[in-house]
Every structure is written in C-alpha cells, then in structure tokens.
C-alpha cells in the first residue's frame, strides 16, 4: 500500500504581522502570506498547482491563484469544521503530491477575526441542527459549549483551575519570547488569571484564545524536490483526520463519553502510520482555542491516559525543558488565533531550529487541529 510517510515536505512558510486590527483585506493578507512562503521556499508562484484551505476561508482559490500568478492548478481542497481543518490542509496536499496529482502545494489561512465580526453573533445563519437543541438555552458561543465539557472534566478527574492556568501560562511564556506574538510584552501571573473576569464559568478570560487579524501559509513539495529547496525540509511523516462514531461537533454531549473526542480517532490513525510514538515527540503544537483542549488532547494523542491530562501539566511539563514543551510560539492563546495555522508554521520553525523558543535538537513535532470538532493532525520530522 502506498504511504504518505515522509513522501512530502514543508519547504516554505510565510506569515503577515498579527494584530487586533490590520488595514489590509483578508484577500491581501492571504496573498502576502503565500508570496512570503513561496519566497521562503525559493519556488516561483507559476509552479504552484495545488491549494488547500478551510471551508471558512473567505478568499477562494480563484482569487488567490490569479492574484499570486499561479500556473495551471490541478488539485484544490477545502476542509470543514473551522480550526479542526487546520492540519488537514497539509494532509490533503501531501496526499495529492504523493499520488502525483500535483507538485507544488500551498496551504493557507487568512482571517480578520480581530477586527471582523464574531461568528456567534450572526443569528441569521443559525443552523437548525444541532443548534435548536442548544442555542435557545443560551449556549451561544464556543466558550459556552466547551465550558460544559470543561466543567465535567474538572468534576470527573479532580482537576482544578490551576491545571488550566498551567496551560495558559506555558503559552504566554513562549509568546513572551516571540516578538511576532500579540502577547510578546505581556507576562501572565497566577493572580491575573485567578482574578480575571469570567467568559463562561468555569472558563475565564485567559482560558480563551485571542481574536486576531493575520494570515499564514506554507508550501509543500515531494521529498526529492525538497532536498533542492532553499530551506531545510520538514517532512510530513504522518497525517490523519478524525470524526469519531456518534460525534456531534462542538456540542458533543450525546455519545457514550463526550470527554473522549476526535483527537482519539485522529491519534489512532496518526500513530498507526508512524515510525515513532508519543514518547518520541520532542515538541508539540496543540490546538488551544480554549485551555481545556490541551488536557483533552494530551490524553487523545496518547501522552497520558484518560483523565490524566490535567495532572500532566503539573511541574512545568509544558514549558521549555519540560516533559512536552507545547505551543512554542505562544499558540492561539498568546501568539495569534488564526484557526491554528500558526501552530503548523511554528512546528516547521522548531524542526528547522529557528524558533524563538527553540527546543534543543528538536527532530519530531506533533501538530494538532481543534479538538472538540472533527479534527486533524500531522507529525512532522526533520
């Protein structure tokens, strides 16, 4: 059977500045990030023949391709479920290139979530299912929906807000090392966390990701071609998506164990395809729209058992030098929230040895997309 294992590599990454408000349009930001990624790779835009992005991406392939001057495009794909699609953009391009459907792939996400509207405020597009069972009762925002799972998690596993603080602090500490991060100059203390305002109790302000304007992109080619590119190749070792049996999206309240989410499904496939396991991961970029997604993901991806994710965060485990440094650019909580694409690029930076919070000799990196929705993940290696 054909395999994706190390058949392709990320050879270029690009990003715009991150801010609460940027003057450029989402389309222009997308083009700027993509052009920067191609320049990083040393590949001409005319060679691009594949695109992948999110269904929530507002700029379509037609606009991007004609703006940057792409050639004939033979593969294009969009992945659903918001931040759950993040790593699948790379996965789809890796599959397309490994099977000869295209040769130079660009994945991107551009979003003005900082200055643009909050999606949950739009009641006109309220989906009939399952929203009729949740929204009338005041579960309006993702924070309310995940807050339900967080409360249950804390209750079932004897976890506390200090565990969630450990997550917020690790991300903030890395952002404080990253000049591109929104929270570069803003340290977080336990007192700030414990006295901050509630968003949806038990989740406080610092349990929630940022609202950011910005865009990122990366370039993927076949492994043979990657060796001739300008940058050290970062190989796509394994890729998986995850939609578990009887899953219900972010309001996953109706299966046997709502705390065992899509991460578990993606992880089983991811590790089955890989030459290494969780113990061999040097650094991880774990989707962090909300702090409780980290313990849930640590469990799902096999770094600890079910219910052990909160305890895993103790003793500085998520910090540089800890058992599993995470979100080394600051993540969605403290660098930028661009539906997780900054996690992909940060994974590449780590394996190039160029992160602002470099894990010494990092050779393997797990990148995950949003837990709590149909998700995706990739394993990168140098």
């Amino acid at each position, binding site marked *: 059977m054909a395999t994706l294992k190390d058949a392709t590599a990320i050879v270029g990454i690009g990003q715009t500045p991150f801010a609460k408000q940027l003057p450029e349009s989402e389309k222009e930001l997308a083009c700027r990030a993509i052009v920067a990624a191609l320049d990083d790779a040393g590949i001409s835009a005319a060679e691009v023949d594949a695109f992948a992005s999110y269904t929530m991406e507002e700029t379509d392939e037609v606009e991007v391709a004609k703006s940057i001057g792409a050639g004939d495009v033979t593969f294009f794909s969009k992945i659903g479920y918001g931040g759950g699609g993040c790593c699948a953009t790379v996965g789809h391009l890796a599959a397309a290139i490994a099977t000869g459907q295209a040769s130079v792939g660009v994945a991107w996400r551009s979003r003005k979530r900082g200055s643009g509207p909050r999606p949950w405020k739009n009641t006109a597009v309220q989906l009939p299912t399952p929203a009729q069972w949740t929204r009338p009762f005041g579960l309006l*925002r993702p924070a309310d929906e995940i807050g339900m799972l967080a*409360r249950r998690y804390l209750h079932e596993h004897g976890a506390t807000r200090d565990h969630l603080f450990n997550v917020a602090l690790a991300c903030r500490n890395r952002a404080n090392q990253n000049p591109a991060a929104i929270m570069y100059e803003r340290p977080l203390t336990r007192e700030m966390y414990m006295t901050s305002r509630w968003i949806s109790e038990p989740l406080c302000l610092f349990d929630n990701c940022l609202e950011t304007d910005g865009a990122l992109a990366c370039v993927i080619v076949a492994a043979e071609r990657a060796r001739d590119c300008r940058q050290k190749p970062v190989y796509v070792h394994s890729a998986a998506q995850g939609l578990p049996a009887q899953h*219900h999206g972010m309001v996953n309240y109706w299966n046997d164990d709502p705390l065992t989410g899509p991460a578990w499904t993606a992880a089983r496939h991811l590790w089955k395809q890989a030459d290494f396991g969780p113990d061999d991961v040097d650094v991880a970029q774990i989707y962090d729209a909300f702090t409780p997604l980290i313990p849930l993901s640590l469990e799902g991806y096999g770094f600890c058992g079910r219910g052990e994710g909160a305890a895993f965060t103790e003793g500085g485990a998520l910090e540089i030098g800890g058992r599993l440094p995470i979100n080394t650019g600051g993540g969605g909580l403290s660098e930028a929230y661009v539906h997780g694409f900054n996690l992909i690029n940060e994974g590449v930076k780590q394996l190039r040895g160029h992160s602002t919070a470099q894990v010494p000799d990092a050779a393997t990196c797990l990148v995950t997309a949003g837990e709590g929705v149909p998700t995706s993940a990739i394993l990168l290696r140098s």
Partner: protein
Amino acid sequence: MLTPVVDPDGAPFWEYAARGELRVQACAAPDCGRLRFPPRPCCPHCQSFADEWRRVSGRGRIWSYVFPHPPLLPDYAAQAPYNAVIVELAEDPLIRLVGNVVAEPDAALDSVDPSRLRIGARVQVAFTEVDGMTVPRWLLERA
C-alpha cells in the same frame, strides 16, 4: 431570545412540548427500540427508518453546567450571568438535554442561586413559552 429553528427531524419534539409533553425519538424496529437524541432520520444501531416518540418522565440529573457572562446577545446579556445546564434523563443517561434551571417555569434564566447547582442534582422538566414557542425548563427537585 432565540427560539428553536425547527427542522423536520426535530419538529415532533417541539410539537409535543407545545402540549406539555417531553418525548424522545425512539427506534420503532421491534427488536431494537433504542432512544436517540438529537433526532435523526435513521437508527444508528439498526439502520431502521421506523420511529416513534416515546414519552419520558421528565426526571433527570445535571450532567454539567456553565454560567455565561457577557459579551452575549442582548436578550441573554440582560439575564447574565445565567445558568445553562445539560440534563441526563432518568430513562437513559445518554439522552442529554441542554436547558436552564429556573425557580419557576416562567422565571428568568438567572432566577436560581448559582450555588444551588451541582453535577448530579436532580431536576424535573417544566415548560414555558418564549416568543410563541414552548420550550422545556428544569426545576430543582426538593431534596
């Protein structure tokens, strides 16, 4: 307030609610009969398209809860912080309904002291009308 945007799968739930009845979709295949929620066209256990709406007791326990704070939609911000709960039904704990615990069926979403909510607390369904639509609410059972 947001009212349920009803689809064909969910319509019977709301029609029974309007009569003050809490009913859950069940498989009507003779050798299956399992409850399912949210409603859907086909039984995920036996693939039967035959269904019925089975009346349940309206008793349950709180599985989890949150207290949303602003920013929220205006009608909700006016009552914030309010509670939103998930109730697991006595008949089948995997059938869970999102709702609100209130002091009286027609009371506001913030009418119960937050300290009275806890996971496992027993609740009983009641119904109220919101903008012409009947929706379930939950009352704490007196211990």
